[in-house]
């Protein structure tokens, strides 16, 4: 095994890197601190974020009456709210896209991220 004093020096001495890190001069010790701080920051951030877990499901009434947003957890089937109303139109359902081509299927689709659903209307 190597004697410890030169190796200690090797760890604290800033050294040059190459490739994309060309011009970077850093010691192993500094990098250790950065790595530990990054990991701590990630854990702390996740912990703070998990104080209010869940995904916001917003409903765009597309001209109809307002529908309040919901917060739901991953993997849950969406509990569809009371349909909105709109003068002169009848409600055709909730859609995944603003142009109302892809309907939300309560049997197959489930919450995987925050999303907005759009109300579809048909003229009476």
């Amino acid at each position: 095994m190597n004697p410890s004093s030169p190796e200690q020096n090797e760890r604290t001495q800033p050294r040059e890197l190459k490739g994309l890190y060309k011009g970077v001069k850093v010691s192993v010790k500094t990098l250790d601190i950065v790595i530990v701080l990054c990991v701590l920051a990630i854990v702390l951030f996740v912990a703070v974020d998990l104080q209010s877990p869940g995904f916001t499901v917003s409903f765009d009434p597309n001209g109809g009456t307002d529908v309040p947003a919901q917060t739901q957890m991953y993997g849950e089937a969406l509990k569809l709210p009371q349909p909105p109303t709109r003068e002169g139109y009848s409600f055709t359902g909730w859609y995944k896209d603003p142009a109302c081509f892809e309907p939300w299927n309560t049997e197959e689709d489930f919450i995987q991220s925050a999303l907005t659903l759009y109300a579809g209307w048909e003229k009476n």
Partner: protein
Amino acid sequence: MANPIANLQRISAEYSQMDKKDKRRFWTDGILNNALYILMLAFCIYTAIKQPNFVSWGSLGNLIVQVAAYLPMALGIAGCIVLTGTDLSAGRVCGLTAAVTGVFLQKSDFANKMFTSLPEVNGWWIAVTLLTVIAIGALIGLVNGFFVAKFSLHPFIVTLSTQLITYGIILWFFALNGNNGQPISGLSAEYKDFVGGELFRLGPARIPMYVLYAVILTALMWFIWNKTSFGKNMFAVGSNAEAARVSGVNVFWTTVLVHTLAGAMYGYSGFVEGYRAGSIAASTGLNYECDAIAACVIGGVSFVGGTGKISGIVLGVVILRIIFIALTMLGVDSSSLYIIKGAIILCACSLDMRKYLVKK
């Protein structure tokens, strides 16, 4: 590849001969070098306790599906990283090719079909579309590679400009034929079957056909990297371009081809992404390159240049996806995931530098 059991025996034999100080160093080195793996494990255990659903065939299937979707782009971008570069245009190229795929393969009876004169979708037309989008990707890659190789411009500059130019083309493309920027939907059933048809089922999860294609592409890239002279030249140029030039490697063509190959992979990613998105918007593909770059760096494709393995890239994509699946199941919002991604990239780069310095 070393036998893992023999490797462990060697390490334990070395460990028993260490003095106290070396033993402490062994552990700190081990923990720091594997910080991201340990972090992933911690998230997994926590998620498994909070959400029993996490340990199930369904989430394994979900993991396989996601890895298959993100792997091709990482395989492409890895070549650019081996050449001590990177590619910022990947996500937009994927978005453009997804849009082209969508327009080519819309249902013929779809009311909002963008180009009504396109032929009926069948096997041949799907093959033509696939080749077209791969060619589009390769062409943008070729432009990247040409400017990087010819003028020794930094890939960050070249690919940043192609990223913006590609986005401009995407916006222009979405405005064609009175489409007015509307998302492209109404994809034909033949295309959906070709990309997303059921390969087999894993519990409740459907494993789509593109998992098979991802396996084939991984094997192909492994062959290119390890068994062809082009692959060997790529590593030579990446570790020292000047030395490679002196020993007779054509640095110009190697660089151009690596970027072209990467572009072709983004083209294929776009072909699959069209199916995954369902309705393709101008924002499709935004920031995908960040995930791919992070996965490569986590998987040991070093920014120092000249090192990297296909198995490492697969591992990197798997680890990144496991972290994101775990966090999503816990209910961490996707906007927060961006902050975590940023921290992961910084952490992975520090690890990458640390490994290089300790080895030196």
